[in-house]
């Protein structure tokens, strides 16, 4: 029986090629998106799940309970030690302090090679490798990283640095300052981990890099690269540990800080997803992708249902014959399901091919290395089987039931009507559902694109265009001065400033402050920026009160922003001029000026209080405002001067507007994904619409012929088709618009500064869908309208 079903299914498939193609292409597009979304979601869900004791691994994290709650995945450096020594909860505790974008120099056969390592270095306690599963390929597990001056590198880096030579006992130089001997080689770090470090150094040597951080008293500061992990003992409840954590605050902090500073445990499974602790893949986005996948499958299945029920009349005689010959309703139903399964299976094969083509694009977007090894990837295979079954039943059940319920007597005499195949109203509902989905996705795309454009083009309160950021790899004042003087002389350089960071940057220092002679620190913190007297001019920051900084080597005076003044509860910026400000409990100096507020973070965060002071010891960048017309000559000159100034380092530069665009990287990814998926939703919808209009044109051949004979005009006949679909699109829009508005309002809630969702977006969405629908149905409708009535009447 099954063979018979498959046989007839295949012959139907090949006989009605155009309908089959529409169905297969529509389903394949939807399924391909689902495969990619599945691959993406399962890739993210697999993060750090390969550690054998993952259920017992936790990261210690920091919370600041003050004016609101602040979160950080990093901790004060001594916390890990305190946790290990003060409590008995953990089997292992490990501290790790990483520094990214570090220069590594290697002498290989007399030749000095330099590498800028994005993931940098990590001072690591050996217990780290007892907690996490990063296997050691070479070296002694018992002694690794215990000796000062020793390092572990991954196999990939060992190969990169030393080629085929044995990397053991070879030396790498870190940041042109410290030599480390390689005493172990690790297996390459898998793709699905957030613990990306590839160079691990003895923790003892942290004091060489930063003695303050390495000290046992550095409780007052949190450096973003300083992490602590714990492997809890079996049967230790994490809630019990969390309840004990306030004891640490009590022991190591004083006064109000005991309430402000809190520490918590974050399960390793949460690290990749929790945005509070800088998790990369917010589950909200993954859910959004999941629903997009569901929408696409539903819309592709709707196509199928639409076309299959529209075609059902053509199958009526066959069903009638089968019933006369003894077939039961259920047998007809299963026959149709078998046919749907053939189409779905063909669509899956095509979808796998489409996904294989689409995956590199997705990998490029996410900077990942996901793969589609179908036969070695059990979950993907299971997903495809499940998807096949779901799509088959979702698409095939209703048309199957319609066919199965045909009365054999009526079916044999071709006396079945639209009424018997669910009528046109069902297909109307399905088309409306399809276009609602497409329109929601179009509106979503427009809003995300609009917000990104808003973020990029809004006035940030400072000038971000044509500013080149050159790194200052060391704090040598002589070199910095020389660099500044030489750059200033270049034609095309309009201004330059030595500073810690640009007004808005991903690296920030935040600390407590005392205003004037107030007894306590304020309940809010200040974002401190170190810069010279050229900072305002270079970045176009505006003074609203007081004056600019005078040139100075150290912090002798402060500039603050308007938010700073507001947070102090003062009415006028003038009120703070001349008042003393103490930051970080150490630097005390008068405020000499107030700058107009500028966005110092992304639009997701509120503008915070900022203070700017000079400090040569803290300058990390040279910001150069250039004339873009001479960029072709200026940029190579920068490289030459920089290389001459810092011959031991690798040159790199970044335009400020590019680094600010980086704040919205995830939004850009989401935009590209939504664009692609919206495009596919529209494609699937259009295919369905085309199929439906073709069917409608055939069914209405006689009506059109008669109308023409009775004097109808071509536009009048076109309107028969246009009227039908215009109405459906408007209804779809009325459903999609409020839903999309609600969803996109939720999305924009994340932003402190955002665009408004105006009527223009909705007009564009409905206008766009109208245009697409018009193009889709235009050809078939015109062909039907222009047909010779004599011929069309004869065909009936």
């Amino acid at each position, binding site marked *: *029986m099954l063979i*018979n079903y498959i*046989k*007839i299914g295949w*012959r*139907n498939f090949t*006989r009605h090629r155009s309908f089959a193609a529409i169905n297969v292409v529509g389903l394949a597009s939807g399924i391909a998106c689902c495969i990619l979304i599945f691959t993406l979601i399962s890739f993210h869900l697999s993060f750090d799940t390969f550690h054998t004791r993952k259920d017992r691994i936790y990261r210690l994290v920091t919370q600041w309970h003050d004016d609101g709650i602040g979160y950080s995945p990093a901790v004060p450096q001594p916390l890990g030690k305190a946790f290990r020594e003060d409590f008995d909860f953990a089997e292992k505790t490990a501290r790790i302090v990483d520094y990214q974008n570090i220069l590594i120099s290697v002498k290989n056969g007399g030749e000095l090679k330099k590498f800028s390592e994005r993931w940098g270095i990590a001072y690591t306690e050996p217990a780290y490798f007892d907690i996490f599963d990063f296997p050691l390929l070479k070296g002694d597990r018992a002694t690794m990283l215990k000796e000062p001056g020793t390092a572990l590198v991954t196999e990939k880096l060992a190969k990169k640095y030393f080629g085929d030579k044995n990397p053991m006992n070879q030396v790498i130089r870190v940041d042109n300052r410290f030599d480390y001997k390689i005493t172990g080689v690790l297996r390459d770090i898998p793709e699905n981990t957030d613990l990306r470090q590839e160079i691990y150094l003895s923790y003892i040597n942290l004091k060489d890099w930063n003695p303050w951080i390495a000290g046992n008293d550095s409780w007052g500061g949190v450096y973003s690269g300083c992490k602590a992990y714990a492997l809890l003992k079996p049967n230790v409840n994490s809630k019990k540990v969390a309840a004990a954590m306030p004891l640490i605050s009590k022991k190591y902090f004083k006064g109000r800080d005991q309430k402000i500073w809190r520490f918590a445990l974050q399960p390793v499974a949460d690290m990749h997803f929790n945005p509070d602790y800088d998790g990369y893949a917010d589950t909200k986005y993954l859910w959004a992708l999941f629903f997009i996948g569901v929408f696409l499958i539903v819309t592709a299945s709707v196509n199928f249902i639409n076309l299959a029920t529209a075609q059902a009349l053509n199958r009526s*005689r*066959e069903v*009638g*014959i*089968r*019933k*006369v*010959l*003894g*077939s*039961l*309703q259920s*047998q007809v139903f299963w026959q149709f399901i078998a046919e749907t399964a053939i189409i779905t299976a063909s669509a899956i094969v095509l979808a796998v091919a489409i996904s294989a083509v689409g995956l590199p694009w997705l990998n490029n977007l996410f900077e990942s290395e996901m793969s589609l090894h179908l036969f070695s990837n059990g979950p993907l295979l299971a997903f495809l089987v499940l998807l096949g079954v779901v799509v088959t039943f979702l698409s095939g059940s209703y048309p199957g039931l319609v066919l199965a319920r045909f009365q*054999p*007597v009526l079916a*044999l005499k071709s006396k079945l009507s639209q009424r018997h195949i669910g009528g046109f109203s069902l297909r109307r509902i399905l088309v409306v559902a399809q276009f609602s989905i497409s329109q929601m996705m179009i509106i979503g795309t427009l809003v995300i694109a609009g917000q990104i454009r808003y973020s990029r083009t809004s006035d940030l309160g400072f000038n971000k265009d044509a500013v080149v950021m050159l790194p200052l790899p060391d704090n040598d004042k002589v070199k910095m001065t020389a660099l500044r003087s030489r750059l200033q002389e270049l034609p095309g350089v309009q201004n330059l400033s030595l500073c810690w960071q640009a007004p808005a940057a991903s690296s920030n220092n935040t600390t407590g402050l005392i205003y004037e002679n107030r007894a306590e620190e304020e309940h809010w913190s200040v974002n401190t920026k170190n810069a010279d007297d050229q900072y305002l001019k270079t970045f176009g920051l505006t003074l609203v009160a007081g004056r600019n900084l005078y040139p100075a080597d150290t912090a002798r005076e402060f500039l603050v922003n308007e938010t700073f003044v507001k947070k102090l509860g003062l009415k006028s910026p003038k009120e703070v001029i001349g008042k003393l400000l103490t930051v970080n409990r150490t630097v005390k100096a008068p405020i000499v000026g107030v700058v107009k507020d500028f966005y110092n973070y992304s639009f997701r965060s509120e503008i915070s209080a900022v203070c700017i002071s000079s400090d040569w010891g803290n300058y990390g960048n040279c910001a150069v405002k250039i004339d873009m017309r001479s960029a072709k000559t200026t940029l190579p000159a920068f490289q030459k001067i920089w290389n001459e100034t810092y011959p031991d380092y690798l040159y790199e530069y970044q335009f400020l507007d590019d680094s600010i665009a980086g704040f919205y990287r995830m939004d850009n990814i989401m935009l590209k994904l939504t664009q692609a998926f919206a495009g596919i939703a529209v494609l699937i919808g259009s295919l369905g619409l085309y199929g439906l209009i073709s069917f409608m044109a055939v069914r209405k051949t006689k009506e059109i012929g008669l109308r023409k004979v009775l004097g109808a005009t071509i536009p009048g006949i076109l309107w028969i088709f246009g009227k039908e679909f215009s109405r459906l699109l408007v209804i779809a829009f009325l459903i999609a618009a409020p839903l999309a508005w609600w969803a996109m309002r939720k999305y924009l809630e994340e932003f402190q500064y955002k665009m408004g969702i105006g009527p223009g977006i909705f007009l564009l969405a409905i206008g766009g869908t109208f245009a697409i629908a018009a193009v889709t149905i235009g050809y078939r409708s015109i062909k039907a309208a222009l047909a010779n009535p004599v011929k069309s009447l004869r065909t009936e």
Partner: protein
Amino acid sequence: MINITNLQKFYRTEEVETIALNNLSFGIKEGEFVAIMGPSGCGKSTLLNILGLLDDPDDGSYLFNGIEVAKFNERKRSDLRKHNIGFVFQSFNLIDELTVFENVELPLIYTKVGAAERKRRVEEVLDKMQIMHRRNHFPQQLSGGQQQRVAVARAVVNNPKLILADEPTGNLDSSNGNDVMQLLTDLNEQGTTIIMVTHSEHDARYTHRIIRMLDGQAVTENILV
């Protein structure tokens, strides 16, 4: 074999009720070849559908081999039909997507006959109908006469007790029509009961008895043998 008593069938729309069969009663013995004739709309096809268990009467009794089948549900009707009744239609009603062999094989699939046995029986009947050489052709590749032969082959492949033929020669020329009538006569001579609806007096002459209908009632009976 068949006994119908006071059979009634109405077709209702919102405003009109049409009587298709009006207290119709008659009987047919096993081995008979009966023609049902009458003008269009007299209820011939409705009667044939009810006899073939494709439709159910609104009232009256229908005994098939002594069993009351008028109120059978779909499953029972389908079961009785596939084991006992073969159909031949005016428009052949072959499935275009299946070959000659597969079309004839279909009733055997529904009666769950094993593959080897199916093959044997289909080949036997195709041979008998002299259409074996066309076994792998599709219906649209055959002439009308050949298609009707296939339809007859399909009707008899399950060795039904009863064949219902609805104007079997209606779409055929006289030569092919005569061939089909001869086939039916041969089958009847081998013991199969045949009820045939026809407008053709010529075809009716092949039968044993003619029941003439008008307005849903049997008005006369002519016994030819």
